[in-house]
């Protein structure tokens, strides 16, 4: 698929994020919007998956370690055909398969239940280890937030992955510099992120603009060439990307737009080409 098509899909994913969060009157738009290119590239280009057979044993795995960005994952899965797009507006509603944080037993295409930060990367390491152990060829991807790096378990998992040379594992750090209580510098910075993962024996790819599809493509292509060590893509992104009043705003980490804001945001996501 050409970058232009993927960019178009990422815009649709963004609209899906807003539809869900607006309908739920809660949820996490900021980090979901900022990772839209990464979600899109993974599910439309990078990963070996089959929406008709979501539990296909040889599928590549994706773990949303930053589970609060479920709206981004759900919008992507819906657009990829795992379930109807109409379901997105049931996000966080009683009886919906779209829980506030992803549950693998509820939603087709979700490979691991996540939401408690730091645990998803460990689960992804387990998947990658299992692939190595039983000789399976699938790859495992985990998306983490930069605030999430404050969880000690991230480094327990990284230590194991590095020491075991899990080169079938790609950890993506969505580095937007913001977390709920403020900037990561204000709260408790995990910087320098790339150096830390290098120290844990990862091959690190620094993605200058994680909202640029061509750069996203190049990063994942480079990741495939690495052998002998796990890969960490440190993706610089803009939280809230695509919605002018949400971009780089801490306040939009976990807040739904009101009706007026929703209309404006959706309009922006139509105009922007």
């Amino acid at each position: 698929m050409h970058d232009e098509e993927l960019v178009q899909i990422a815009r649709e994913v963004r609209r899906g994020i807003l539809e869900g969060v607006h309908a739920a009157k809660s949820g996490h738009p900021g980090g979901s919007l900022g990772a839209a290119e990464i979600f899109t590239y993974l599910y439309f280009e990078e990963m070996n998956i089959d929406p008709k057979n979501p539990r296909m044993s040889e599928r590549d795995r994706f773990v949303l370690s930053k589970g609060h960005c479920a709206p981004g994952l759900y919008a992507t899965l819906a657009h990829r055909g795992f379930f109807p797009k109409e379901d997105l507006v049931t996000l966080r509603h009683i009886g919906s398969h779209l829980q506030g944080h992803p549950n693998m037993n509820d939603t087709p295409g979700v490979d691991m239940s996540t939401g408690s930060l730091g645990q998803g990367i460990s689960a992804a390491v387990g998947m990658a280890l299992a692939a190595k152990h039983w000789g399976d060829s699938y790859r495992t991807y985990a998306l983490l937030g930069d605030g999430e790096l404050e969880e000690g378990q991230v480094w327990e998992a990284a230590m194991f992955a590095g020491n075991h040379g899990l080169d079938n594992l790609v950890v993506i750090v969505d580095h937007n510099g913001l977390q709920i209580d403020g900037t990561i510098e204000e709260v408790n910075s995990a910087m320098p992120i790339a150096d830390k993962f290098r120290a844990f024996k990862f091959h690190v790819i620094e993605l200058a603009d994680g909202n640029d599809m061509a750069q996203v493509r190049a990063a994942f292509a480079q990741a495939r060439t690495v052998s002998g060590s796990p890969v960490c893509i440190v993706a610089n992104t803009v939280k809230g990307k695509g919605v002018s009043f949400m971009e780089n705003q801490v306040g939009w980490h976990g807040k739904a737009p009101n009706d007026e804001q929703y209309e404006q945001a959706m309009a922006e996501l139509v105009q922007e080409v």
Partner: protein
Amino acid sequence: MADVQKIATRVSYGEALVELGAQHDDFVVLDADLAAATQTGKFKAAYPDRFYNVGIAEGHLMSMAAGIATTGHVAFASTFAMFAAGRAFEQVRNSIGYPHLNVKIGATHAGISVGEDGATHQCNEDIALMRTIPGMTVIVPADDVEARAVVRAAYELEGPVYMRFGRLATPVINDPETYSFELGRGMVMREGTDVTIVACGLMVGRALEAAEQLAGEGISAEVINIHTIKPFDDELVIKSASKTGHVVTCEEHSVIGGLGAAVLDALAPTCPVPVRKLGVNDVFGESGPAVDLLDKYGLNAEGVIKAVREVLA
């Protein structure tokens, strides 16, 4: 009784894993730098390429085991009960329990019989913690024979299992020739009419000792071994309590939230008979030889007899 064999259930665990490994290669064993103590070192020695040490990282241990389980394989995750149920509680709840993944937690060094290491390592809260997790199976084997059967049953069961093993060598009370483990079903170890003693783990043997002594005093005690704390065998306990009218629960665990609480939960709605809970009385343990500690905290035959007298008074 002089020649009764004594084996720690952690040893049974390690040996049972080796036996299981000879028959199946769809599981791996994980440990967190305690393989010698948890006895998974035996498995490591037998199958070095099917054993993974995560180091001192119990949170990662549990979530990584969950990730392995998502691929359709089984992971045995081992560490001390304190760290499995305590430190990693939230990983067990969210990574394993919520998605109902096929992880078998082998938690050794449970209870006060850890001995000299003292209170930081004596986990008297794990049964309570684990039984609150929806869908978690919680098993406390009473001896070597039962522990070996539990490992096999846990492997065969689809879903998360918490197995509680001890450090202290304890008497083998079951006959390996006739023993049969049935998940979720308590076992009447001795029939009686005056009082029901419900026990788990090493307290089953001690309850049987107590029942023998009580018989000499003319008190007929029924002894039930509840190896599966969850799902709980309500039916058997209610049936026995209805017959005897008095219940004593015995566990090497806090009196809060463990076997005693499960028994009360079972009896309260339809069979509210007097119950006396014998266990660790909401205190931390301390260093000392395991057997002496069990005596000090009343977790012996004398303690059981005292509780029986209280409930019958």
